[in-house]
Structures are given as structure tokens and as C-alpha cells.
């Protein structure tokens, strides 16, 4: 007996020693890119993007370093950087995969205006015909100039009963639509986006966030005195942080600073897609809302929800949000499902100190860091390109090819939920319902599963209709016949004529 115990304990001890190095190997650090699965568990993922290069001002041949740059705009291969602290806008042209050249530096405008020098430009937008719209915050105006910087028009303080006439107009972010209308976020105005017609007149506020408040505050306020009430925070809509107009003319607006409860309950959204009426039409079919990180605990000195400071929307309807809290980028597809998440705070390439703006150029992403005063260029990896390819092929109606691309994605990352659902959707379109069901079931996609199952059930019933009818007939007719036979037998048994 003792020997047995000794042997067993020796084996156990040996196994533990052998297992020890492999156990420590399990405790690897998380990968740079990650994603959330159905359960909200972090799944490491291959990199969707890698840093091609980080550009400080000197890399463009600029003598004066950037100072607190805030705005970024991309049109074609042109990049505009609003160097807010230096009162200038730098226009760059991308000449190679990792090469930019300075086209011009805009620090003043020409023409029929008294104030010619820009003062703290925070954002810029360029129309298709080449007119520049500059949010000239220090001069309290949004100015429209032609491509040669000749003054054309000016947009000023909104003329509205809710805005005090002697307030200073502080436009921070602007977008323009194809008709030349301007939508602007202004500091101190939380009624929504200020909308201006093409001729410069203010035409109203659109898309204010719904007011949120919690019940404790509300009750507390009912009992507070007038003086206390003034000091308490008032229930006002959250002002947006940044806006982006996608190619279809919908405005994506992001906001930060919502409370955790509001985000959790869905009362506040970190990102909204506004239609012309200013209502939110963002599709959120994902398991989790598009508010970035799911875990808000303190880690590395950062806590709380992700704080979106900018958003950009690619042509394939994937929108990438920039989180200034943890310095991360979150990509979501048109269904609101997370495509990738990566980044972090730090000094290494691909990490940020105070990310301020994001833009895309094709599939490449450009991030402006206002503290590090640099531009980071991200290029998709093979994995990222495959994901985009699969999504674009599906949107174009090439369902077979999309399925194939998703299979390649799955080969690179077997923990990628979108790949399974993508393959399933492609099979669904190819009318291979039963196979599609398997893929949807693996990733708990009940809506798509139901779609596939409905068709499969229909097909099954149509194929087996003869058997079904026979079974029903048997189930109903056999007891009936047996009953009838028994009745007859009974009648014969009790019939008088057979009695002797």
C-alpha cells in the first residue's frame, strides 16, 4: 500500500514539474490586435493592421514642429493637418506607400475679408470642386475659400433663441455635404450639430443626443433648494466630440464622457449615425454595442469606458472609432459587429499618447496624435485585407467568392466569429441551408440560423410530404379502424342471433 502511494505521488510530482514550463507559457501577454467573441471574452487575433511608418513633422521636411494638432482631413491622396497650435494647416500629398510631400502650408487667406490670418484652425473640409472649409476657431468663424484661398463666405454664430447673441462662436469640427451645407460642432453648444445652408445662413440644430439622467439625481434635485440646484449638474445633452460624413451623406457622430450606466443601459450611445432628420439609424446587431472596450476596470492607469474622439467610415461601411482613453482603434462593420480592435497608450510605434483624429485613405488608416505631434500610417495586413475582401465581395453579391475569402480568414484565425458567420451567410445565399446552419450554430447567430433553418425546414417538408401524409394518416386512421373493428366484434358478440 505504501509503495503504491509513493509511486502515485512520484508520478504526480513528476507530472507537475513537466507541466510547469508549459503552464507559464500559457500566461502570455495579449496580442496587439484582439476581438470579442460571443461571450465577450477577449480573443487574440492576428494583426489586422500594422504600422507602416510614424511621421513626425520633420519627416515631411517641416522646420516648425507640430503643436497640438487637432484636425485631419483626407481627400484623394491629399492629407490636411490642422496644426492648431501653430495657426496653420499643412497640406500633404501622398507620393508613395510611405512617403508624403508638403504641397503647401495654409496660414492665411486672401480676398475680401478683414481677418486674413488663421487663428487656431481646428478642422478642415474640402468640397469636391476644391473649396476649402476651415473651422477658424480663434477667429470665431467657419470660412469658405476657393482652392486658391480666396475668401468666399463665412459662417458665424448660430442665430437662434437658445444661443445668446454675445456668446463667442467656437467651431471645433465640421463636415460638409455635396450641396455645400455645413454641419458643425461648436464648443458650448449642446443642442446638436449646427447646420448651415450653402449660402451661409444658419438653418437649425440637428441630431442632439437624448438627455440622460439617473433617478437618484432627479429625486435629489426635487428636494434641493434653488441655490443647491444651481450648483448641481444640469441635465443637458452630451455634446459630440467629432463627426464624419460617409459617402452616402450620413453623419457619424461620436461622443465621449457618457456615464457607464447610460452606456450599459443603452440610454447613451458612444457612436451615432444620423440621417437627414438627425435621428440615429446606426445598426447595432452585434452582441455588444459599438462602444469599444467591454471591460472598464482599471488597468495601467486607465479606467472607464472607451472615449471616442474621432471616427472614420470606409467605403465598405466599416467604421473605425478612435478611443482617446486607452489609445485604441475599434473597427465595426455595417451590422455593428466588431471587426478588429488594436492599439494602446505608449511611445512605441502603433501606440499613442493623445490620439486626436483618424482618417482613412483607401484601406489605410491615418491617426493624428496631438501630444506626440505625429502622424501614424497603418496599412492592412494580409489578414485585414482578406477580411475587407470578404466583406466587399459579399456586398457586391459575389457570395461564393466571399465564402472562399472568409474560409481563408478562418485559416488565419480560427477564433474569428465574423468568419464563421460570413461563411454561413455565403452558404445561405448559395441555398446550402443545412451547412449554413452549422456555421451559425457554432457562433450562436440565432437570427441567421433561423433564416437558414426556416428554408431548410421548408425544403425538408416539401421533400418528405408523402411520408408525412402517410404518417398522419396512420396515426389517425389506425386507432379509428381498430376501434371500428372492435365495435363490430362487440356487436357480433352480443348479437341475439348468435346466442344459443
Amino acid at each position, binding site marked *: 500500500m505504501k509503495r503504491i502511494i509513493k509511486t502515485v505521488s512520484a508520478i504526480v510530482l513528476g507530472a507537475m514539474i513537466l507541466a510547469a514550463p508549459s503552464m507559464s507559457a500559457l500566461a502570455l501577454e495579449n496580442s496587439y490586435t484582439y476581438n470579442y467573441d460571443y461571450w465577450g471574452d477577449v480573443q487574440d487575433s492576428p494583426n489586422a493592421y500594422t504600422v507602416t511608418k510614424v511621421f513626425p513633422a520633420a519627416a515631411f521636411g517641416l522646420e516648425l514642429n507640430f503643436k497640438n494638432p487637432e484636425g485631419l482631413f483626407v481627400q484623394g491622396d491629399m492629407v490636411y493637418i490642422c496644426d492648431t497650435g501653430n495657426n496653420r494647416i499643412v497640406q500633404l500629398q501622398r507620393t508613395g506607400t510611405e512617403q508624403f510631400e508638403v504641397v503647401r502650408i495654409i496660414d492665411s487667406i486672401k480676398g475680401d475679408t478683414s481677418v486674413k490670418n488663421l487663428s487656431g484652425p481646428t478642422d478642415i473640409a474640402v468640397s469636391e470642386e476644391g473649396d476649402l472649409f476651415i473651422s477658424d476657431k480663434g477667429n470665431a468663424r467657419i470660412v469658405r475659400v476657393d482652392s486658391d484661398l480666396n475668401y468666399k463666405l463665412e459662417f458665424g454664430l448660430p442665430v437662434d433663441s437658445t444661443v445668446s447673441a454675445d456668446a463667442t462662436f467656437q467651431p471645433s469640427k465640421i463636415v460638409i455635404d455635396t450641396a455645400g451645407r455645413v454641419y458643425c460642432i461648436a464648443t458650448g453648444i449642446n443642442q446638436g450639430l449646427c447646420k448651415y445652408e450653402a449660402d451661409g445662413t444658419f438653418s437649425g440644430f440637428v441630431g442632439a443626443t437624448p438627455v440622460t439622467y439617473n433617478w437618484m439625481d432627479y429625486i435629489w434635485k426635487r428636494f434641493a433648494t434653488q441655490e443647491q440646484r444651481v450648483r448641481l449638474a444640469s441635465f443637458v445633452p452630451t455634446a459630440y466630440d467629432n463627426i464624419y460624413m460617409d459617402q452616402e451623406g450620413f453623419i457619424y457622430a461620436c461622443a465621449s464622457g457618457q456615464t457607464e450606466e447610460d452606456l450599459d443601459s443603452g440610454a447613451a450611445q458612444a457612436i451615432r449615425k444620423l440621417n437627414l432628420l438627425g435621428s440615429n439609424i446606426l445598426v447595432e446587431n452585434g452582441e455588444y454595442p459599438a462602444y469599444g472596450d467591454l471591460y472598464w476596470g482599471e488597468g495601467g492607469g486607465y479606467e472607464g469606458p472607451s472615449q471616442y474622439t474621432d471616427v472614420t467610415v470606409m467605403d465598405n461601411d466599416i467604421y473605425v472609432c478612435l478611443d482617446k482613453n486607452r489609445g485604441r482603434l475599434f473597427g465595426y462593420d455595417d451590422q455593428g459587429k466588431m471587426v478588429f480592435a488594436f492599439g494602446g497608450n505608449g511611445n512605441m510605434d502603433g501606440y499613442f499618447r493623445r490620439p486626436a483624429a483618424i482618417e482613412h485613405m483607401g484601406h489605410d488608416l491615418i491617426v493624428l496624435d496631438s501630444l506626440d505631434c505625429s502622424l501614424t500610417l497603418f496599412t492592412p495586413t494580409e489578414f485585414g485585407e482578406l477580411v475587407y475582401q470578404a466583406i466587399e465581395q459579399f456586398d457586391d453579391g459575389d457570395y461564393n467568392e466571399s465564402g472562399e475569402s472568409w474560409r481563408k480568414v478562418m485559416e488565419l484565425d480560427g477564433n474569428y466569429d465574423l468568419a464563421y458567420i460570413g461563411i454561413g451567410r455565403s452558404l445561405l445565399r448559395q441555398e446550402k441551408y443545412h451547412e449554413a446552419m452549422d456555421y451559425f*450554430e457554432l457562433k450562436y447567430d*440565432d*437570427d441567421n440560423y*433561423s*433564416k437558414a433553418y*426556416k428554408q431548410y*425546414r421548408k425544403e425538408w417538408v416539401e421533400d418528405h410530404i408523402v411520408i408525412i401524409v402517410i404518417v398522419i394518416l396512420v396515426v389517425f386512421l389506425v386507432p379509428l379502424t381498430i376501434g371500428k373493428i372492435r365495435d363490430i366484434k362487440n356487436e357480433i358478440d352480443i348479437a341475439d342471433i348468435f346466442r344459443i
Partner: protein
Amino acid sequence: MLAALRRKETYQKYFKSLKFALYCITHPLDGFWDLTHEKRGTYAAANTILFLTLLIRILKLRYTSFIFITVYWEDINIFLYIASVAFPLAMFVIGNWGITTLFDGKGRLGQVYMASCYALTPYPLIQFPLMFFSNFVTVDEAEFYSALSVISLVWAALLFVAAMGQIHEFNLGKNILFIIASLFAMLVIVFILLLFFSMISQGVAYFISLGKEIMFRL
């Protein structure tokens, strides 16, 4: 005991009492009265119903369509899962018996247990077919599943109330009052258990540290 198992009447009685559960759930007042007063229920049948309830609750995890139940298997502890039904039931039975004995309740501990188990009958009865049914529906038809599922629970709850009233020979008001009192009794039991276990562990820890100290000094 073994001799009883060999006799045919034992099985007849068992199946008859199991079948009586079906009468109980359709005629609760009459059924639960006869259950103890006419001795038409058996412990074997009560245990069977409880076992089936626990079994089907576990089977549901695996065989219900993922549309209704998605299971994070890593977090499932089968013993905890069984205890999540069995432990509250045991506490209710003991708490209810403890309180009602003080206030003219006619039921004995075993009878309370038996009636409680019989009251669970609708759960396995409805959930078992429902488990298979769930695999043949889509999200749009999910309402049928949810409705039936709720019916099984509400039905069992109503039977519970009826059973307690009949076992203890209480009228409705007194019955409901004592069911609520039983819930408080459950809380008291939990409190005492917690107290008991923490005291025990503290006591054990004390003697262990005492032993360690002595070993250290030697």
C-alpha cells in the same frame, strides 16, 4: 427491503402513486388532500419526480436549441447546478415544516417534502417535450416556447401553494402567509449555515495555528 422489491404489489403501488401525480396536477385541491390523507402518494414517486426535474434541467442545457439557451460550458458546475434546485427545496421543506408545526400545521416533514415534489410535476412534464420542440422553431416562433416554458413554472408554483394548503389544512390566507413566512425561515437557515461554517472554519484555523506554533517552538 429486498423482499419488498421482489413483490409485485410494490411496483404496482409505485406506478399507481406516480400516475397519481397526473391527477394531482389537474385536480390540485382534491389531489393533494388525498396524497397524504388517503396515502395515495409514495416517497419513491416523489423522489422520482424530483430526480426527473433535476435530470431534465441538466438535459435542457445540452439539448435545447441555442436560440433559447446558450451555455458557457466553462462556467457550468453540475453539482452547483443540481444544488441550485435541491438546496432551496430542502430549505423550503425544512423551513416550512419548522414554522407550520408551531402554528397548527397538520403536515409532517415527510409529507411536506412529498407534496413539494409532487407539485414539481408540470416542470418535467412540459419541459421535456419542449426541449425537443425548441429545435424545430425559428426566432420568430420563439414566443411559443417562452409561453409554454412560463406556463410550466407558473403551474408548478400554483400547485405548490395548493399543496401546502392541503397538507397543513390551512385556508388560503393563512396558507399564503405561511409560505411567505417559510421564505423568511429560509433566509434564517442560510444565515445560520453561514454563521456555522465561518465559525467552524475559524475554530479549525485556530487549532491549526496553535499546532503550528507548538511545532515551531519544539
